[in-house]
């Protein structure tokens, strides 16, 4: 698949066909932590975003954040702030930036960078404890980031 690289300065670029417009992790353009341009050009699916956030094998955001709109998800953590109202506190571009690489918004935060491929110290092969082979894929795909952002935007108080 050919991926078109979206250059940071060209934020006024028009969106073309969804599949071809994916931004690679290396070419994401942050502006004060925010990402204006959709990573895929396709709209995010909030229902899928909720799944990514609660699934241990995907975002597992609830490991650190409580989300009261997900009462069925057990053991929500409190390492990060509750996400209730996140859609009021942040603009879409800011949320995309936080979910892609929160360190661009919160310096030195414990929150992992979900749309990044390195560099890492002793990167492993998932949770096996063994060394990673080759370049790692980001923790979430571009579309999963968009789905999560779409869900976060529904969190209004």
């Amino acid at each position, binding site marked *: 698949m050919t991926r078109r690289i979206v250059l940071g300065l060209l934020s006024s670029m028009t969106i073309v066909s969804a599949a071809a417009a994916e931004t690679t992790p290396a070419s994401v353009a942050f502006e004060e932590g925010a990402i204006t341009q959709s990573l895929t050009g396709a709209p995010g699916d909030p229902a899928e975003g909720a799944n990514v956030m609660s699934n241990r094998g995907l975002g597992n955001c609830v490991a650190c954040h409580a989300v009261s709109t997900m009462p069925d998800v057990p053991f929500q*953590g*409190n*390492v990060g702030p509750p996400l209730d109202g996140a859609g009021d506190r942040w603009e879409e571009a800011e949320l995309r930036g936080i979910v892609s690489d929160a360190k661009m918004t919160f310096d030195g935060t414990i929150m*992992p960078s979900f749309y990044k491929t390195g560099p890492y*110290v002793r990167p492993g092969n998932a949770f096996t*404890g063994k060394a990673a082979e080759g370049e790692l894929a980001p923790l979430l795909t571009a579309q999963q980031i968009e789905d999560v952002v779409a869900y976060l935007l529904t969190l209004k108080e």
Partner: protein
Amino acid sequence: LTFSGLSATADPADDTLVLNGETEMVTHTEKAPDYIDGLTEQYSGWLFREADTRVMQADDFDNPGMLGVEAAAEVWNTVEGSEGKSCASCHEDVETSMKGVRTQMPKYNEAKGTMYTMEMYINECRTERMGAEEWGWTSDPMINMTALISSVSRGMPMNVAVDGPAKPFWEQGKEMYYTRYGQLELACANCHEDNYGNYIRADHLSQGQTNGFPVYRLKQGALISQHNRFKGCIRDTRAETFKEGSPEFIALELYVASRGNGLSVESPSVRN
């Protein structure tokens, strides 16, 4: 033993550990050692576990880790190897000869010119003094023996040396403690210094102290070593781990132990 707060609060329990109704243990200090920048107070991992787990550790009859201690007590007196000796041949009564040893482990071994953990001392005695096979780092006989030797120091304060020849090892361990490993880029300090008391999913984060090791983990139904725990924590950051017994984990063991200097030895403790 007193209980307070049945709800899952984010704080360490307000509880006192009295072993077998007689030995009062230090599970909390109001002042961490000066060389630990990131901690003001120290808390044992015991205070972050549920009430039933805490009770289990308070009485040797309920503590499943004591089975390992009993098994090792037999091995202590068993002759093995080409020299026809048992541990008792040289060290006699474990309660007397090994009292306090755990508080100083790991320590710098002058003769060998490097940092030695309890496992290394035990294997040195087996291979160089008994003519016996060495035990694997996480083998049952090794873990049981470290539990036995540690158990006779229960109630005594951890007191590893951080300066002199130990200093470079301590520095190496400290650097590791603050290194953000793996694809999740998490350092020990992110979880055990910045977030102890908080919940990460179902896990109530402690300070990651090692005064209770080896610990009996209910989840695994077995005694586990410090290096095994370090391995698990690093693996959970989606990193390539280090090996049990590696120079890196020996250095980390020293540094983490020094963060607990002043807390009572609890081994074998009970954790989930």
